């Protein structure tokens, strides 16, 4: 294992994050604060408690997940797409590093950035709502697993994308709708039965539900199912990356 190379890639990616710290943090914190103000304080007042939890508190796990998932995907996809775009990928291909090490470096950095943002948003939430975390360890585990799995997915998108339009296509057309319809702002039990069934095909439902369970001890789907879902999702991403590694898909001709 070329540990120095992994650390080099990791630090390089993190330095880009810290170089643009203000925009990296201000944007997600500001948009999440707006969600708290609009959905929590304004609209939330006219919404009944959900499963015995105030609406403002109810949306916190969903909002964190929303930011973490989109940030993980965008950071990881951009992280590996950028060297492809400007041609510096030749350095990765001609250095004594394995594809696995490249994945660890880039996915590790993207996961760290999204974890950082998730933590900041959680901190921000305490300013707006009265919040308790019932299972802190489970909360951290869910958060970390989501950061890693969505960074893996972002990495796949970054490898697949041939241009900036494609880079934004999947997050915009697939991930954002899945996250918004994944129960970030509502409990799926609030939906008509047909849509409840449809929602169960959305993998994000399981992640948001599991994460929410770690806060309030209540969930849309059983916690075991949530754990299984995130494990399967991570497994699929690793499988796709393994295939990319074997075939050199869009990286090494």
């Amino acid at each position, binding site marked *: 294992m070329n540990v120095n190379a992994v650390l080099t890639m990791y630090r390089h990616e993190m330095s880009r994050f810290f170089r643009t710290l203000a925009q990296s943090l201000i944007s997600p914190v500001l948009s999440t604060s707006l969600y708290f103000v609009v959905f929590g304080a304004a609209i939330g007042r006219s919404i009944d408690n959900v499963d015995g939890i105030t609406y403002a508190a109810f949306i916190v796990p969903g909002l964190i997940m929303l930011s973490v998932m989109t940030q993980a995907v965008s950071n990881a996809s951009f992280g590996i797409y950028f060297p492809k775009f*400007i041609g510096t990928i*030749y350095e990765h*291909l*001609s250095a*004594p590093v394995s594809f696995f090490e490249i994945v660890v470096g880039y996915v590790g950095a993207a996961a760290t950035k999204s974890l950082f943002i998730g933590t900041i948003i959680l901190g921000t939430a305490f300013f707006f709502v009265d919040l308790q975390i019932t299972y802190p360890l489970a909360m951290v585990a869910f958060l970390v697993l989501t950061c890693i799995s969505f960074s893996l997915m972002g990495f796949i998108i970054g490898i697949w994308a041939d241009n900036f339009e494609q880079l934004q296509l999947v997050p915009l057309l697939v991930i954002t709708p899945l996250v918004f319809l994944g129960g970030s702002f509502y409990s799926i039990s609030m939906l008509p039965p047909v849509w409840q069934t449809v929602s169960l095909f959305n993998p994000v439902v399981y992640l948001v539900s599991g994460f929410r369970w770690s806060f309030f001890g209540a969930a849309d789907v059983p916690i075991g199912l949530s754990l299984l879902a995130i494990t399967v999702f991570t497994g699929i991403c690793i499988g796709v990356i393994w295939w990319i590694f074997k075939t050199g898909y869009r990286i*090494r*001709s």
Partner: protein
Amino acid sequence: MPIVSVQNAKKTYGSGFEALKGVNLDIETGEILALLGPNGAGKTTLISTICGITQPTSGKITVDGHDVVADYRAARRVIGLVPQELHLEPFSPVRATVSFSRGMFGLPKDPKLVERILRQLSLWDKRDAAVKELSGGMKRRVLIAKALAHEPRVLFLDEPTAGVDVELRRDMWRVVDDLKAQGVTIILTTHYIEEAEAIADRVAVINQGEILLVEDKTKLMAQMGKKKLRVELASPVTELPDSLGGYDLEISKDGTAITYSYDAKGEGTGITQLLMELASAGLVLQDLKTQQSSLEDIFVDLVSAQ
């Protein structure tokens, strides 16, 4: 043992294009090999295949005895690559991007070495400047600095002087000389023949994915170089006397000179006989000049003969 050994390397891209058709090439330690070829000949593919950017379809390539596929880590540790295009992160400071390259080879930070490399390439004053602020020539030097950051024993320079001015080109040749003096083996692709002529020890000519020849540069020029004898006449002529029909002669446009092409290494050059024939034809000679074929002439002959 050659430091780089390419045995029957073939590369066929997904589109079916056969970029390398069984290349065999041995590169000796410490030499400068110029890989010459027209655009699309397979120069960059060959370099990319040795360096790990593309995988060979078949054949065996070793660097310092290590297979570039099976034992890629050991093979790549020895290699430095300067790509043809200016592939650099525009926002990275010069020193940081050179250190990044060193780190990618698994080596710990070495600020003194990085400083030495930057000074050698006259980049020290620009160490904290972002790459995007540099001129094209300086960016190319940054690429070289990056390639040298892990102290490679074999350096591949893919068209290092493409699009740079004459002064910088000579500057680059000086850097190459310095590296050779340090024992670095250098493989240089170029289509500037004078570059190969100026700095290479050996020349390999590649065209349509095949190596046409590999030869010591001076030997090559001596072996294959034709010479030309230019005979300047006291008074112009419009046509050659019939007695000179057996010679390979050309009259200049204004008729004041005749050029005779001959093989300097041949058994008889025919010069004595030609001069006698010229004299008996009544032509008065004013001056004589001989000229050796350049590497470019040899190259053009080889490629067009294929």
